[in-house]
């Protein structure tokens, strides 16, 4: 059986790092904070690997099925009979896999940051935030309760906010962190309402019970949830769609993706950790967690997931081809790849061979985490060297940054799906799953795959080939610094090794939709077309960008409308700004404030003023003239007498 203490320590050690460095870091660990955090996380990583080994090879499998184990559960907040937030640990294939991925990538980023962030004023704070993020992400992964996942969901959101805004004196970073938080927050409301709906019908918040109750066709809960409907759509579908909106927000799915490119304002290692490898796949993880409910009880919601994923993948790939900031290119590429994972889930079915999409999605999540982290860390090394994010400042860097160059190339090959690198295997599985279930999505995915290799190699050739730009070396003597030393190169090499070899893991053995071993079948014939398409993309990119020439401009001019639209990210940001500024601010908030100040408060003040006015009027009766009083008295007396005598007898 799993060792609860060890598993609990995996998230708690980063938390300890956060608390120690956050409270005492500035005073006592000014220089050693990086070492402390890295050491703690190393222990976490080892524990995660140990747990994974134990789960997959020792106790996890019972009768050929990987068990969902809940070794720890503690009632944290009881809402009503049966409905409570439990703080628990769930151990099943996807959570164990994610534990390894998150701790490993986080460890790489911790090590890398020792070099990258060296000399920064707020070094301890940086590591404290990284610790907070790692804790929250690990907590999210092992959540056994849908509300627990929401809690950690918000916590990763806030740590992402803190890390994006790390360079807080840069106004663009401040704007970006706000945007990221608010957009994901908006999506989280959907998630929250989804939780409310699901918990109401299933009368539990516990994942295991919830999935069980909502997938058993005979259960009353499922019948009620399907029977209740709003706008012609069943309550269950509503709930799942709303939960998916939460996931889409965090995973930067169209149209909630606008925060992700801006989030690149954070330090590059942070982008690698949060906005490429781990946090942004939380949405995929969430859908995967609830996958049985999606696929068995509400196929409509699942197909929505598929289409949103496919659209996001395509749009992001198109936009990525036109961006010039290398981190933004990578950001759009991330969005595109997450789109892959999403539609892989969307086209999947529950159980057996039909569940290939599920396995493929998780597989891609795994490999993508490795090669995308590698890409970002490589980009970080370049930025560290050049002090610019713009492609136009780069070129010919292969001579100066040899290790970075090689590892970056490996990552690019991996993401383009060139065999035998990791991306090839996972992508091939995804395409196969799409081909079997939904042809439309398959074609979208195929086009996207070609675009992916094009923009990745556009990036690669622009950075490492072509003419060296002397202007970029003017700033300071970074040649001396070289590639940033051992601590920055070690993660690159380790990740490159992973990107090259991870594809050979027989993933279906470990992770499948019904947790029964799925044999990987390799379809050589099927994989020809995507690989060929990928290679075509690489060749076009080589032709256009390897040497300095004017082909890109020509090409851009040729397809000017599309190019311009893609360069401006299809104007989605502008639409958002229109909605928030014009509609929410000017049409709702401003009139509300005006209404409050003038109407509501005006009414209160008018009451006061009115009282004053009336009393001013009334007080003149008190004229001080005694005869007036006497006359009033007599008139009043007579009237009263008349009233009493003749009216109220």
């Amino acid at each position, binding site marked *: 059986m799993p060792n609860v203490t060890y598993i609990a320590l995996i998230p708690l050690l980063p938390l300890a790092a956060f608390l120690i460095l956050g409270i005492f870091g500035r005073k006592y660990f000014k220089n050693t904070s990086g070492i402390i955090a890295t050491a703690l996380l190393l222990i976490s990583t080892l524990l995660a690997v140990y747990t994974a080994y134990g789960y997959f090879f020792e106790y996890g499998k019972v009768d050929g099925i990987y068990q969902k184990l809940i070794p720890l559960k503690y009632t944290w907040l009881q809402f009503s009979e049966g409905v409570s937030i439990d703080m628990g640990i769930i151990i099943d294939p996807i959570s164990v896999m994610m534990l390894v991925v998150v701790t490993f990538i986080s460890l790489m980023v911790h090590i890398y940051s020792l070099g990258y962030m060296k000399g920064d004023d707020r070094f301890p704070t940086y590591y404290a935030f990284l610790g907070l993020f790692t804790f929250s992400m690990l907590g999210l992964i092992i959540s056994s309760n849908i509300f627990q996942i929401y809690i950690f969901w918000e916590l990763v959101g806030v740590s992402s906010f803190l890390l994006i805004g790390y360079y807080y004196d840069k106004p663009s970073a401040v704007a970006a962190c706000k945007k990221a938080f608010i957009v994901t927050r908006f999506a989280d409301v959907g998630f929250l309402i989804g939780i409310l709906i699901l918990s109401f019908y299933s009368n539990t918040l516990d994942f295991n019970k919830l999935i069980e109750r909502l997938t058993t066709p005979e259960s009353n809960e499922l019948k009620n949830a399907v029977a209740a409907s709003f706008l012609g759509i069943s309550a269950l579908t509503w709930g799942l769609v709303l939960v998916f909106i939460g996931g889409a927000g965090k995973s930067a799915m169209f149209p909630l993706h606008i925060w992700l490119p801006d989030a690149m304002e954070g330090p590059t290692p942070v982008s690698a950790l949060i906005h490429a490898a781990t946090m942004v796949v939380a949405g995929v993880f969430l859908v995967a967690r609830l996958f049985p409910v999606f696929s068995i009880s509400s196929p409509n919601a699942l197909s929505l997931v598929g289409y949103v994923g496919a659209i996001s993948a395509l749009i992001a790939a198109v936009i990525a081809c036109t961006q010039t900031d290398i981190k933004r290119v990578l950001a759009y590429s991330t969005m595109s790849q997450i789109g892959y994972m999403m539609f892989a889930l969307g086209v999947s079915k529950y159980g057996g061979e039909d569940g290939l999409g599920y396995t493929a999605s998780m597989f891609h999540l795994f490999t993508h985490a490795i090669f995308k982290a590698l890409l970002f860390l490589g980009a970080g090394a370049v930025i560290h060297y050049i002090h610019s994010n713009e492609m136009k400042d780069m070129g010919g860097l292969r001579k100066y940054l040899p290790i970075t160059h090689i590892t970056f190339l490996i990552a690019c090959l991996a993401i383009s799906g060139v065999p035998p690198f990791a991306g090839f295997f996972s992508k091939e599985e995804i395409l196969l799953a799409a081909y079997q279930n939904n042809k439309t999505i398959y074609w979208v995915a195929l086009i996207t795959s070609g675009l992916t290799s094009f923009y990745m190699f556009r990036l690669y050739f622009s950075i490492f080939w072509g003419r060296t730009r002397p202007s970029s070396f003017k700033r300071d003597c970074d040649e001396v610094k070289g590639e940033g030393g051992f601590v920055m190169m070690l993660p690159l090499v380790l990740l490159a090794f992973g990107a090259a070899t991870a594809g050979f893991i027989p993933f279906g053995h470990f992770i499948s939709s019904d947790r029964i071993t799925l044999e990987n079948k390799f379809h050589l014939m099927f994989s020809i077309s995507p690989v060929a398409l990928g290679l075509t993309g690489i060749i076009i990119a080589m032709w256009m960008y390897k040497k300095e020439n004017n082909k890109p401009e020509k090409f851009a001019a040729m397809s000017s409308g599309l190019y311009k639209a893609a360069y401006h990210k299809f104007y989605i940001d502008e639409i958002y700004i229109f909605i928030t500024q014009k509609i929410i601010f000017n049409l709702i908030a401003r009139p509300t404030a005006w209404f409050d100040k003038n109407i509501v408060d005006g009414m209160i003040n008018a009451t006061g003023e009115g009282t004053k006015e009336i009393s001013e009027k009334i*007080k003149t009766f008190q*004229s001080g*003239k005694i005869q007036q009083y*006497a006359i009033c008295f007599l008139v009043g007396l007579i009237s009263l007498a008349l009233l009493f005598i003749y009216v109220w007898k």
Partner: protein
Amino acid sequence: MQPGLYHILFISTVLFFIGVFGFFTRRNLVTMLMSIELILNSVNLNFITFNKYVWPNKLDGLFFTIFVIAIAAAEAAVAIAIIINLYRTHQSIDVENAEEMKF
């Protein structure tokens, strides 16, 4: 017809309203005081009349008349003291001029 209760009540009522009229129209404080005396007298007359014609077995009306007379005397004394004091401060005993106690 032998004058009786109603006749006297008529006298006292008329006297009362003469007093009221005087109180309303006079501006001199002393004359207003005189109107009040008329009103008081009409009340006294009522007391005595009722005592005589309605409850001849009691003397309550008579006693009240005595008390009213006593109180009227005291009241007149106090009122005149006030009037004289007012005259000292205002050089006038016109009621229109004594209207500080307002608002």
